[in-house]
Every structure is written in C-alpha cells, then in structure tokens.
C-alpha cells in the first residue's frame, strides 16, 4: 500500500491492529481483552519470572530435539522415496496421509506411550514436522534434472559422490522449504503437545493463566509464542533466499 507516494510495508498494518487493540482494551468492552500496553507490560514482567524461563528452556529443548530428529530422519527418507520407486510406492501413501491427518488425535497415544513428560512433547514435534520434510525433500529430488545425474555418472561419480555432491545440493532449496514448513508445524506440535499434557512448559503456564483469568499474561505468552514462530520461519526464509540465489538458474 502507498500513502502520499510512500510505500508502506504490508506488515506495518499489524501496528494499526495493535492500536485498535489498545483502544478496545481501554474501552473495557471485553474482559478477555486487556489493553495492548498492559499486555506488553505483562510480557516484560513475564520474561523475568523463573517459571517462564524454565518453561522456555523446556519448550525450546523439546522443540530442538524433535526438530533435529525429524530432519535427520525426514531428509534421508525423502531422498530414498525420491530415488527408489518401490520405496515411494510403499511409503508415499502413508506419508501423505499423515501429512494432512489431524495428528492432534494421536497426542493421547503419545502420552500413554511416552508418559506425561518431555518425551511426549519431543514425539509430538517429530510427528508434526517430519511428513512435510519428507514430502518436500522427495519433490526436490524428483525435480533434479536427469542430465545432472547423467553428468555425474559420465564423469565416473561413485554412489556416495552422487548423493553427497549432486543430489543433496540440487534438492537443497526444496529441502529447506520443507524444513521451514516443518518448523512451523513443529511449533504447532510443541504447543498442542504441551496444551494436552498440560503440566509441561508453556502448556502449564497457559493452563494457570487461563484458569486464574490472568488475561494480560495469557496474551503476553501468546504473543511471545507467535513472535517465536514468525522469527523462526523468517530466519529459514533468509537462508532459503541465499540458496535460491545460486540455485536461481535451475
């Protein structure tokens, strides 16, 4: 959008909404909505509490472990499916089903299998994130130009060199896109997992805040979470842009 010839970035409209929020909050229209300034103040206070800090550490650790697992498993699986037709035929259906299924229904299973602790949250992150990583990696491997593979073969590439020097790199943009989407899903997984387990990390905090009607803190926590999700996806997008730069000619 442009005003008086100046381009205003699209995300700037979020500021407008913050102002609107402040006004609605000040007017005391809904008890659920305290003024935005109050939420910000609550956020500043919140980050200083030990309970928030330890919840954040728990959450981040579960998220990081779950994501690392889903990348370590998902990328090779996607490459396998992209290269070997039989693997693709046998696994493709299930990957596809799980990538769009209501996985939240599976969290109770995780809870009885892994207990009411961090392991369940890690498993939830893994379960939410892995499928899209597999799918995108597979698509990336499928899109590699056959002549690039022939080129490597004609210059005598070994199997290992073919995968390490050609396939992994040629599929990298799609792999990164898959990881970015996987991270977004992983954040959802960590939150849904913690909400359902309700005694770990942010889930416990959300539970306390909403039970005791501490709305400002509830919103503060929500905003922190949203900011984290957006920050992560923005970071990966930067990385993607960098890869696109030299892969631009594909």
């Amino acid at each position, binding site marked *: 959008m442009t005003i008086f010839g100046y381009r205003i970035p699209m995300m700037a409209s979020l500021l407008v909404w913050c102002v609107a929020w402040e006004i609605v909050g000040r007017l005391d229209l809904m008890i659920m909505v305290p003024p935005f300034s109050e939420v910000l103040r609550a956020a500043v206070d919140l980050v200083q509490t030990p309970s928030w800090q330890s919840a954040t550490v728990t959450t981040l650790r579960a998220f990081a472990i779950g994501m690392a697992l889903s990348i370590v498993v998902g990328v090779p699986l996607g490459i396998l499916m992209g290269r070997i037709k039989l693997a693709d035929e046998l696994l493709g259906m299930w990957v596809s089903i799980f990538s769009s299924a209501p996985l939240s229904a599976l969290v109770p299973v995780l809870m009885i299998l892994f207990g009411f602790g961090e392991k369940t949250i890690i498993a939830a992150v893994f379960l939410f994130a892995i499928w899209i990583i597999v799918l995108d990696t597979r698509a990336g491997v499928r899109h590699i*130009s056959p*002549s*690039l593979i*022939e*080129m*490597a*073969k*004609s*210059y*005598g*590439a*070994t199997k290992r*060199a073919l995968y390490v*020097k*050609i396939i992994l*790199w*040629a599929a*990298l943009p799609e792999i990164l896109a898959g990881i970015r989407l996987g991270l977004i899903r992983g954040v959802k997984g960590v939150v849904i997992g913690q909400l359902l387990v309700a005694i770990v990390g942010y889930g416990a905090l959300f539970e306390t805040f909403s039970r005791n009607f501490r709305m400002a803190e509830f919103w503060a926590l929500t905003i922190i979470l949203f900011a984290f999700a957006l920050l992560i996806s923005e970071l990966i997008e930067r990385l993607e842009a960098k*890869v696109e730069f*030299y*892969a*631009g*000619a*594909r």
Partner: protein
Amino acid sequence: MRNATLRKGPTLMPEPVDAIVEVRGVSKSYGNVEALRGIDLDFPRGKLTSLLGPSGCGKTTLLKIIAGLVNADAGTISVNGRTVSKPGPERAFVFQDFALLPWATVLRNVAFGLELRGKAAAEREKIARHYIGEVGLAGFEDKYPHELSGGMRQRVGLARALSVDADVLLLDEPFSAVDEQNRRKFQEDLIRLRTTQNKTFIFVTHSIEEAVYISDRIVLLSPRPGRISQIIEPEIDRSVDPDRIHRDKHYLDTVEEIWQGLKQYVD
C-alpha cells in the same frame, strides 16, 4: 577438386580407417518404441563426426549408449579396441542443457570431472583454469552459472569435458540452447579446438548447415527405428575465412543434397 564423397546405403561401410569408437550391431527399444536397430558404425580417430537425423530418430540414444549412460539391448561398443558398457575416463559428455552445478562457480564446475576422479584441489584448479582460458572464459572463474549467458554456460560444459583429457568428446546438440550469434562464434571455436586438441568429436545436431560446416563426416539416420541411411564426408576447407565458407558453393551444394535426402522424412 573438393568433392563430397557420398556413400549410399547402410551396407557400404567406409574402408577400415583407424577407428577409435566402434559400434557393432547396436539395437535399443524403450518398451515398445524401437529407437535404434542394428547400428554398425566406426568413428575415425581425430575427426569430428556428426549424427544428423529427424527428431526422435535415436541420435541422443546412440550417443548415450556410446557414453555408457544407456545400456543397449544388443550389440557392443568398443573404445580404443576395448569393449565398454559403463562411462569411462576416455569419453566425456557435453550436455544439451549444460548440466552445470548451479551452486558451484565456473572454476569448480570445470574442475568437477577431476574432482570426482579424486584429483587434488590445487592441481585440478590449475588444469581447469587452463581450459577456462582455452574456451575464452578467462576472468569468469568465480561467477556462478546463472550469471552467464547460454553460450558461456555451454563453454563451461565444454571446458569441463576438455579438462578430464578424454580421447572422445560426445556432444549432444550442444548449441541448441544457445542464441544464434553465440552459436556461430562457438562453431568457429569448435573448429579451432578440433585442430589444436587432437581429440575425436562425436556431435549430435538437428541443423544441416551446422553439420556441414563443422564435420569431417556426417552420419544420416533414418526415422524410427534409427538406422544409418547415408554417410557423407563434406571435405570443406576450413582454413579460409569462416564467412566465406558459408557462401561457398560446395558448402551450399552439400547442404542442399542432405536436405533432398532428408526431405522425404518430413511431412
């Protein structure tokens, strides 16, 4: 004085010259599409031979069989007297779509064949720099493929094939994705490289003019299933000014003659 030597019919093979690549009885089908049937062909050492024929007649297939990238259903390929079925260091392929690594610089791309063969970095880069200069790309070593024009990219592909020091260079329509001006320039360079490099070139093309302009021998293939229909040796004196060749009567006659032969296949 310079007469095109025409040998009609698949039965008439040229007298045994020093053949570096020998194709014997090669056939290939994809499912129920018969791409090649009973190809017997010799490629003389140090010459540039073109494979010319209508689209889909199996030129690429034949070239890839020679390269060892596709397995023939029947028949053998021998290079330097040894039967081959896999890619080997004595053959190098130049791809129609360049097949450059988009994430690697010109230098690394040119050196890539040597990298796969495990040559030390310093040594392979020295060789690569030499051939980058040879194809006229000096100064572009650190550029990425997407920063180059189509013609320059194909030069990278050519330099990569030259730097592994293979005896036989296999080129699959190397100029089809290159604009016309670059193509002309490139053809001249190829003629020059052929005399300086002392290598055997096997060259697939759609263009009659291109084939006559650069080849020592032209193998005409018939439409599917691909068979040899004619072998022509244009014997054009290329030491003269390139622009004169294009207006040379002998050149034009040969082009016309090939066109008359191919015309029946176009409908």
